[in-house]
């Protein structure tokens, strides 16, 4: 147990600073950089907050880290995009039940000069094999995120292990989507990105979309309540309310109405 003096001093600290002890109910959502960097959550959350009075606090990290944080109990709801890893999360007992929420797609972007000559293709596996064959610079997330997992699946389908070339033409940024796009923009490299982050990204430089439309580039997002049986501190009622809203008509409509420069970034598909 925690000694009383620590408890008392922490409460005193909270009182004197007057911050961090808000009265309003809130939940913590462990989510990914793509939902935040694209502006989607900033757009849809005020609707839920006004309706319920529940403040939604979003921690945006890579899918891998979001899941690990949720396993530690440091979040009430998990909103990420790596279905196999999410199903494992539920199977291991850390999550209650996973629901589909929405989808968009990944695209391969690269420099306009297109040294590997992959432009206009719609076969991601073939395009990656061409990039690797020509040893054209490619920047990977390298951070165990949903996008990184998807990228590794396509390399696997092409029968290539690019990590052997790490540090040469294959660069692992070990960073979020936006930071990785900044690297690719700076060095004129190819990079796999989700379309939402790409469309809302402000520093494209010489990059453009080169390969899109492959069904394998489908990008599904799911939402899961962290299991209160594993972590009694989980705000299960408020968290479930958020999930119900997100996969219900109001949340789904809000997702579909989010536009950037006239383009829809996410498509609702809750069942």
């Amino acid at each position, binding site marked *: 147990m*925690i000694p009383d003096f*620590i*408890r008392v001093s*922490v409460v005193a*600290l*909270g009182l*004197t*600073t007057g*911050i*961090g*002890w*808000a009265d309003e109910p809130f939940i*913590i959502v462990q989510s990914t*950089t793509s939902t935040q*960097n694209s502006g989607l959550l*900033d757009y849809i959350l005020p609707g839920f907050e006004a309706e319920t009075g529940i403040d939604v*606090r*979003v*921690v*945006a990290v890579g899918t891998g880290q979001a899941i690990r944080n949720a396993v*530690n*109990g*440091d979040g009430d709801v998990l909103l990420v995009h790596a279905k196999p890893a999410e199903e494992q999360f539920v199977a291991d007992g850390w999550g209650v039940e996973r629901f589909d929420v929405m989808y968009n797609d990944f695209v391969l972007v690269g420099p306009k000069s297109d040294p590997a000559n992959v432009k206009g293709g719609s076969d991601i596996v073939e395009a990656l094999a061409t990039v690797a064959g020509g040893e054209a610079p490619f920047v990977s997330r390298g951070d165990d995120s949903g996008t990184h997992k998807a990228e590794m699946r396509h390399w696997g389908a092409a029968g290539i292990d690019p990590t052997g070339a790490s540090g040469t033409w294959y660069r692992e940024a070990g*960073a*979020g*989507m*936006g*930071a990785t*796009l*900044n690297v690719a*923009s700076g060095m004129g490299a190819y990079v796999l990105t989700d379309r939402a982050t790409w469309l*809302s*990204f*402000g*520093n*494209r430089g010489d990059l453009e979309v080169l390969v899109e439309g492959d069904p394998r580039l489908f990008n599904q997002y799911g939402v899961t309540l962290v299991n209160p049986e594993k*972590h009694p*501190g989980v705000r299960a009622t408020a968290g479930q309310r958020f999930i119900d809203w997100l996969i219900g008509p109001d949340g789904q409509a809000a997702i579909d109405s989010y536009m950037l420069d006239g383009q829809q970034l996410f498509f609702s598909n809750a069942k």
Partner: protein
Amino acid sequence: MLIWWYIVQGFAAEFNQALSLILNGDAELWAIVLLSLRVSIFAVLISAVIGMPIGAALAVARFPGRRVMIILVNALMGFPPVVVGLLVYLMLSRSGPLGVLELLYTPTAMIIAQVVLVTPIMAALTRQVVEMLAEEYSEQLRSLGVSRLASVPVLLWDARLALVTALLAGFGRAIAEVGAVIIVGGNINHVTRVMTTTIALETSKGNLALALALGVILIGLAVVVNAMVSTLTLRAEREGLRHA
């Protein structure tokens, strides 16, 4: 200078936008600046309350292991913020020993992380200052019959200007730090988003304008802090001369 010129040239549009955000008093921007100041000022004050007595004790007390402790405190000044962030996260996580306090992802968590970072600076700088003064006044204090430990409050009071310099140095470390606060604060909008974490976020979104605007404010704060340090040091030196 040349580098600065290139930056301004290359990002002229962003730079103009940044300046207008600052000059127009953008509410969102200033809320972030205020939260940064509140978190770091509280962290520095708490660090002073913890670190200064430790530093003073290390300066005047004589006990076995004292030298080792001094080396340790000095080394802790260079503790990587990311590691501090990780340690505080592991403590405050719901799976951690202090999880029930529900402090993770709050400003209080960020204050705790900054206290861990800044306290060694307070202790080390205080130790140096007080040790020098203790040597200088050792005969006087002994002739007045003041014991070594009892002399601590007097020495601290005499060193007050130099200690303000320590406060400002600690504040500089706290306000500019990003690695620890982004882990334990979570960079949550309107709750734990401070200047440095916003700079990291906006850069990753390719929004160089807001990132640059906050960078300009951080540099401005650094200049103000340094100006205060040099003014105080100057005053302290003058008063020192008058005493002598």
